[in-house]
């Protein structure tokens, strides 16, 4: 608002005067207005930082008693017990009030969050990069535009609608028609043996991960598409003129050119996957206090636990359950931040061959 006011001011000059001149005149005309703009800019610049610190601070303050009482075992135990039924006693341990018999361990939440996000990325990244290459280099312009529109529409579907589809249609389909086939054919070796065994009822890590993939694909694909569009034609022509195939050109020229940007896009998608709440809560089964047996049976994530357990947590008169949820939220933030930092380090490592300056990425 404040920024646009001087431009609109009629005294700044008649229609024909170029914008910078008019803006300059208006700003000289009113020092106060300039101050407003300057301060609006300063405040605007600090709001993201301030809000991050505020959220972190409040969360930390809320969670501190829980962090003290739950200790390090919070990260290693699989237990979710708010206390002894209807006649719980309020007890004080280390100066922290909680219900007798309450005990919390977040291992299933942490494993579930990372597991669903990994499944989502493993599926979404190749699909997205392939789709982006296809849109830019193969599809005729009209079709590429159409696919782009659908990509953006997909990104705009509310997560609760995706979750509903996942719970009602997609989950049962996976459980009945896909999971049994995979489970039968997977070899019994580490990692892959999580894909064996009981195929569940359609609520589990695999379904949640795939639902997340659907929500991550538009983000990664649209960003990657825009990146690939920026790759200059000259090195690509050079590759073609050298007799490289389209696939070689994409793998050796186009994608390396935008490598760091693609990593950024993947982190964007990962952030979405880690924090996505509703769709996962609707498709994961929210199994508290135990690790899932395999990728088909019910499990939970940090976000799903917080949203589904919050109501119950408010019933804890000592407030300790809510404090534990705050601690859980803090863990999620740390995981997300760690993913961001990790990606930055990765970008620094993989951007081995420096690109020309001003490559427009």
């Amino acid at each position, binding site marked *: 608002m404040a920024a646009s006011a001087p431009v609109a001011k009629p005294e700044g000059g008649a229609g024909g005067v170029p914008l910078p001149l008019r803006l300059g005149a208006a700003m000289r005309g009113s020092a106060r207005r300039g101050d407003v703009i300057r301060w609006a800019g300063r405040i605007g610049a600090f709001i993201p930082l301030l809000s991050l610190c505020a959220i972190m601070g409040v969360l930390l303050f809320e969670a501190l008693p829980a962090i003290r009482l739950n200790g390090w075992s919070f990260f290693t135990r699989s237990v979710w017990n708010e206390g002894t039924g209807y006649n719980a006693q309020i007890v004080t341990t280390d100066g922290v009030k909680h219900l007798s018999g309450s005990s919390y361990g977040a291992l299933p939440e942490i494993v579930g969050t990372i597991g669903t996000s990994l499944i989502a990325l493993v599926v979404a990244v190749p699909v997205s990069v392939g789709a982006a290459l296809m849109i830019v280099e193969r599809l005729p312009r009209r079709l590429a535009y159409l696919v782009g529109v659908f990509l953006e529409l997909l990104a705009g579907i509310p997560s609760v609608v995706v979750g509903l589809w996942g719970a009602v249609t997609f989950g049962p389909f996976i459980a009945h028609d896909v999971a049994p086939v995979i489970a039968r054919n997977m070899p019994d070796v580490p990692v892959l043996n999580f894909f064996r065994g009981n195929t569940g009822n359609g609520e589990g890590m695999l379904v949640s991960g795939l639902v997340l993939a659907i929500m991550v694909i538009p983000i990664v694909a649209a960003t990657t598409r825009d990146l690939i569009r920026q790759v200059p034609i000259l*090195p690509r022509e050079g590759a073609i003129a050298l007799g490289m195939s389209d696939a070689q050109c994409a793998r050796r020229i186009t994608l390396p050119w935008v490598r760091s940007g693609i990593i950024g896009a993947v982190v964007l998608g990962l952030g979405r996957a880690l924090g996505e709440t509703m769709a996962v809560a609707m498709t994961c089964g929210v199994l508290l206090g135990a690790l899932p047996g395999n990728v088909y049976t019910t499990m939970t994530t940090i976000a799903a636990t917080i949203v589904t357990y919050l109501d119950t947590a408010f019933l804890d008169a000592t407030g300790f359950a809510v404090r534990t949820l705050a601690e859980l939220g803090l863990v999620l933030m740390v995981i997300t931040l760690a993913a961001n930092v990790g990606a930055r380090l990765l970008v620094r490592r993989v951007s081995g061959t420096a690109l020309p300056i001003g490559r427009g990425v």
Partner: protein
Amino acid sequence: MNHSHVRGTVSNPAGHPQGDPSVAPASAGPGRPPGALGAALKAEGLASPQTRAGGAAICTLGLTLGFQQRDVLCNIDLDVAQGKVTALLGPTGSGKTTLLRTFNRMNDMVSGYRHSGDVLLDGRSIWRSGLDTMALRRKVGMLFQRPNPFPMSILDNVVAGVKAHRLAGRAGIRPIAERHLREVGLWDAVATRLKDSPFRLSGGQQQLLCLARALAVDPDVLLLDEPTSSLDPVATESIEALIRTLVPRLTVVIVTHNLAQARRVSDRTVFLNRGRLVEHGDTGQVFENPAEAETAEYISGRFG
């Protein structure tokens, strides 16, 4: 020099710059309708041995091509002499770059591209069915207006084509890189930083690197599309000197706006104007004694 070679008549074998004037100069004028030779050859199904044997690496036969409605090249009959440097000259929009990019089928990707007539490489059509365009482009290398290194190390740049075509095993890669970097005179400058980014090299060095990359896949023909237009005089000179060392091993076709450059590096000169082939002859003759008035005007700087 009093003889003139006009329009697609190459008769001298490689290595003898003074052409044999025995072939009657077929004028572009009333003597013979343009394209008749091409049509005749096409009727025979092959390049005729008298006019085409020995000398020509690339023959175009009545080549007409365009994009969408617009004709860019019109009825071009041209023999590109084997083992020589042929310069394509002409004002902007004369179709010389399009002609150059036809030889390795780089125009195929442009939307609305169409062509009639034929282009023969070593006597065989570049549009024949079953031809592997990637193999064709390996045999017909190209250098562009601006250096276009790939986003990989200097070493990987040189051998990018070698790897893509699997021309050498893992152990053979480095010797190939060294040989071709030496060939273009870049070895001493980059020997200690083969793993570095090519984008830190100067423009001239980058273009030399691209030349080494093109040479590393062992092409028969090298197409140069204004290769020095973005370079300084020193780099230009080194590229030009290199071009002269490539013949007669390779056939070189160079598009240039720079008349002096055409004169310095080429054995044969082709003058194109508005999509038509106006004149083709030995470089000295075209510059000193052009057969066509249009050529004379262009050479003397009166247009273009």
